[in-house]
């Protein structure tokens, strides 16, 4: 299938934006400006981007501790994201959440989640809202291979299939559950086959190939919108920067790390596909990179200039009504 130039460039731009965000966040972390921990999405950009390209602002997602990519793909504002990481009053969560809890309810992002698998039941509930209110909205739950072994996934998948809820479960199989390699997580080689047991379609794609993700997700999301129920998308990928910033990665060999970096970077693949297919020139892609770098500079500068989050209003955010 030949993809429109416009779509291809949009996918590339968002992937590059995510990578750029992770690069800046990593640098800020290195400068001790970010507290706590961050988990880089570098290497998995094609998944969030290929899926969210099909979502409207009134569709919902739930995200993970490795959530920056999902936020950006769901059209979050970069300044608000940086400001959150920097603990500023203008951050998405006004410094209460940080990297692991960025949410943007105005765009249907129901939050990153520090609990592995924590978002899966919530996305299922959002899909219940869609069904209960008779709309064609859909919910997508992003989670990793580690979360696929949590009970909440099993319970939610069963409920969603039973009630034919418009939810797509997107498992980003990035080869490790923290330090546990995927072959020690599952006794079967392909967990997309589990979907059959729940009574929903299971599809497996190369999660580094944004075209493949875009096509597969497009069908599953359209299906959900038509009221045909949930589905499971397994996308193979690799986290290029380890589990968290500063992960010593003792569980991986140098060869493995280097090999993935040079051979399986989805951004390199995407550039090759776009230039090779004559959808755009390398110079045009470079121009996008440059534009995004400037946007990133502005976002970081605005976030750094913002005031620190105020502690005075902390208790106000605990309860909505009192």
């Amino acid at each position, binding site marked *: 299938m030949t993809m429109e130039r416009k779509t291809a460039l949009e996918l590339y731009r968002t992937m590059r934006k995510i990578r750029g965000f992770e690069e800046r966040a990593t640098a800020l972390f290195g400068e001790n400006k970010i507290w706590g921990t961050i988990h880089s999405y570098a290497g998995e950009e094609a998944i969030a981007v290929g899926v969210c390209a099909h979502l409207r602002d009134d569709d919902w997602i739930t995200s993970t501790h490795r959530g920056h990519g999902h936020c950006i793909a769901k059209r979050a504002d970069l300044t608000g994201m940086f400001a959150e990481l920097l603990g500023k009053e203008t951050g998405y969560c006004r410094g209460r959440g940080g990297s692991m809890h960025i949410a943007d309810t105005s765009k249907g992002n*129901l939050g990153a989640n520090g609990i592995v698998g924590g978002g899966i039941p919530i996305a299922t509930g959002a899909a*219940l809202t869609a069904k209960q209110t008779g709309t064609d909205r859909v919910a997508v739950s992003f989670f990793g291979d580690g979360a696929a072994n949590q009970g909440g996934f099993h319970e939610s998948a069963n409920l969603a299939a039973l009630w034919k809820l418009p939810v797509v479960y997107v498992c980003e199989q990035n080869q490790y559950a923290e330090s546990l390699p995927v072959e020690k997580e599952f006794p079967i080689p392909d967990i997309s086959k589990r979907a059959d047991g729940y009574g929903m379609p299971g599809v497996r794609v190369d999660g580094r190939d944004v075209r493949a993700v875009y096509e597969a997700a497009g069908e599953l999301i359209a299906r959900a919108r038509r009221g045909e129920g949930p589905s499971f998308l397994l996308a193979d990928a690799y986290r290029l920067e380890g589990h968290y910033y500063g992960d010593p990665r003792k569980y991986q060999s140098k060869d493995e790390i280097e090999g993935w970096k040079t051979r399986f970077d989805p951004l390199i693949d995407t550039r090759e596909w776009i230039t090779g297919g004559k959808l755009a020139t390398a110079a045009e892609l470079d121009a996008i990179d440059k534009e995004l770098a400037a946007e990133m500079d502005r976002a970081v500068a605005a976030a750094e200039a913002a005031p620190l989050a105020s502690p005075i209003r902390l208790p106000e955010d605990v309860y909505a009504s009192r």
Partner: protein
Amino acid sequence: MQVADRRTAAEPATREMFYNEALGDAIRLEMERDERVFVLGEDIAEHGGAFQVTAGLLDKFGPDRIRQTPISELGIVGAAVGAALTGLRPIVELMYIDFSGLAMDQVVNQAAQNRFMFGGQARVPMVLRTQGGSGRGNAAQHSKSLEAWFTHVAGLKVVMPSTPADAKGLLTASIRDDDPVIFIEHKLLYRTKGQVPTGEHLIPLGRADVKREGKDITIVSWSREVLLALDAAQRLAADGIEAEVVDVRSLVPLDIETILTSVRKTHRLLVVHEAIRRGGYGGEIAALVAEQAFDDLDAPPRRLAGVDTPIPYAAHLEKTVVPQVDDIVRVAKEVCS
């Protein structure tokens, strides 16, 4: 969505109802008033709920709004959290509070904290209805009083009504509340009766109720132990001790002012609850009173609570581990001596 005003002008102002009936009445009225309200849980449809709270509601509202679920506590509580975050107002029924451990991540890490973690962007208007307590020989896994677990989590509200009228009024307020409310009923209260307003009945959360006035000792309690405290107060009166019984009704938010006002009058405090004493909410109330009204006290604040054991099965054993009327009378006299 439609929010209709339901006035029931033709009906009498009050009617005698069972506690479970009063709860069902609150749910029915709120579901008629606001179509965002729905119920999900195990055995709640044709069966009417394990304690018959939702009896008759399936016929009235249909299977989408009286949504019976498989046995999947984490999944259904999580679905309620997601539905609440996206604009509905779910009432999720957990058949026994002892099963809450299966759902706890969604209660504690998600429902309770979403609003705060997201910097106030979200609200989670859900009610988790459940029931606890001993007295039916259900043994350790079906008899606990676990309210202290929930009071210890910032972001949750905890409500424990003792009478049918309070059950209706507080459940109505809980359904209309924009925060996650843990609404804990007691399995021995479902078949207690009382006069209940027939129309809309709303009791704001965070208002204690002085169930009996007295001048000699303040007995603070909640849920079923309030009824035992009232029985004890009658017996104490025969011995010349006038006990004031304060039913806190909601533990979070807590109406400490009503408790302090009472203690400033009686100068003595006894907190009574069924949950085990160690780490129980009685300690919190005793500490608050000691901190804020120490000079008004003529005796140390006292707790009477469950023995620090799991609930045993046999009828005669079960009674020995939770406060009975005799115990309340005895300890109240000690405090007053």
